């Protein structure tokens, strides 16, 4: 599916049919981005909707001929997600701090079972929810979204050095989890 200039113009003029077409397109391209920042699909979709509203409002005031829509839409979505992350950072850290050892074990077991059943993309991405939130955000922004450490520092209110440290920590933790998954799957197969 391709989004043409005419569709974008119609969207800017509040043409519902065109907006639905654009929403479907954005859903497919931006929902994966949102899912990386949220643990469940509902929250991801909520962020996507807020981002899409900003996109529609932005279309009215932007030069559509010069617009690289994919990059622009992704940027808006990422900024929305980061804004939400900033707002909920305090709450999230508090929430994570309340997790008991038993809860963590149960959570880890679920991840392991997912990995056993399907060593697929969703299971891989779910590993990002198992590492500290800041490290996961830095990893996603740097590796998947292509931001530089300087940009990440500005977005997440941290220094470049801290961003690099989070990236290194994220890679280290993800490596451990991947190795753990690797070792468990063959065992299961042998049994």
């Amino acid at each position, binding site marked *: 599916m391709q989004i043409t200039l005419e569709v974008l113009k119609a969207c800017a003029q509040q043409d519902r049919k065109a*907006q639905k077409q654009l929403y479907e397109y954005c859903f497919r391209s931006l929902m*994966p981005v949102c899912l990386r920042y949220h643990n469940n699909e509902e929250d991801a*979709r909520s962020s996507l909707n807020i981002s899409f509203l900003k996109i529609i409002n932005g279309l009215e005031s932007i030069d559509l001929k010069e617009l690289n829509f994919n990059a622009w839409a992704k940027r808006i979505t990422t900024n929305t997600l980061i804004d939400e992350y900033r707002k909920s950072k305090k709450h999230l850290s508090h929430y994570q701090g309340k997790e008991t050892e038993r809860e963590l074990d149960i959570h880890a077991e679920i991840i392991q079972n997912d990995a056993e059943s399907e060593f697929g*993309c969703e299971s*891989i*991405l779910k590993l990002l929810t198992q590492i500290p939130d800041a490290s996961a955000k830095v990893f996603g922004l740097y*590796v998947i979204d292509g931001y530089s450490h300087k940009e990440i520092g500005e977005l997440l209110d941290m220094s470049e050095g801290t961003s690099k440290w989070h990236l290194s920590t994220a890679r280290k933790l*993800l*490596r451990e989890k991947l190795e753990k998954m690797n070792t468990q799957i063959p065992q299961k197969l042998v049994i």
Partner: protein
Amino acid sequence: MSWEDKDIDKLFRESANQVNVPFQDSFWDEMEAMLPQKKKKKGFFWVFGASFTVIAVMIAGTFLYPTQRPVSAKLNSVSTANSTPTNVVAISPIAQATLLETNKTMETTVEEKTQHTNFKSNDHAPRFQNRASKNPFFTEGAISAHTSSNTGKINPTFLTPISYQNIVNQTETEIRLLFRPMSNSIGLQPSKNIELQLKNRKSNPWFVQLNAGISQAYLREASTVSPTFSIGVGYQKQVANLAFSAGLQVQNMFVNSLEINRTSRVYHFASTTYQQEIQIKQLYTMEIPLAVSMIKNRHTFSVGLTPGYLLGSLVKVREFENGTLEQQSNYLGQRIGLKSLSLKPHVGYQMQVSKAWQVGIQIQTQLLDQIDLTQFAGEARNFPLIGQLTIRKTLF
């Protein structure tokens, strides 16, 4: 397998690109409810634009009214043989009041009119005279007085409005001075017309008011602004330039798009789903508009508060059984999902177009909601604007 950094990056990058979440039409329905309505904003803007234009034209017309004409062009003095017009004095309404006070305190003997002095207007004077006699607040009103060459006494014959062009550059004090020497030396008795005018200065405090406007209180995706109409009576007490008014009015608000859907499922051998779709079409509210106004000539600026009580609503109820329409009917008086009390502050402007009639515009907002927002799926603004055109008629 040992995981290098580049392997981890590649794995996650590829995984991120492979995620595929199936799209459902219901997702779009949720999104559509959040999107802005262009039509409604445009409609709201144009209706308000038109209202303001009408008011602006009316105000402009007040100031641009062609009063800049020479007195000679308006007044054509035709006197009888034994009378000679010698003096024409124009006074403001304030000077008129002074005139009355002066005459009340002075003991004067004024002979009955022995001559008739007629002022005829060759163009606009009759119209002015008519307006001046009907409206005691009419600022262009003036008095002309004639002295008789035979008796040497002044006969305040009748009111003849003349342009205030002659006195426009004079202060009120100057105007009083202009008039007083003559009244003090000779003495004046107000004519019946003057008495009538001053008697009518206190207008009846009771009035009937009709309001028509549009509200952006409760909007849904497919709806435009909601039209509102209200009619009521009121009482106004004027103290100097301030007026305090209270009224009682019934407001009818057309809200075609308000819907409440209720679904219940009954389990028996199979299961049956009953769905009730309640579409609220009109809201009837009893309101008590309270206002304080500042009156300046024919212009009135007001602020106020309007508490209201919801009397009921007109609803259309459609009942479905397993998705099939079973019954459809209109009911009056349903209060499902509605709240009783409302509170609307407002600012307004009215202009006196004649003694009995005022037209104006009023902007309201809403502090208390009339519907239960937890059951409302549309866009309910915190401080929705309600624009109204008002027409008021003073009762006699």
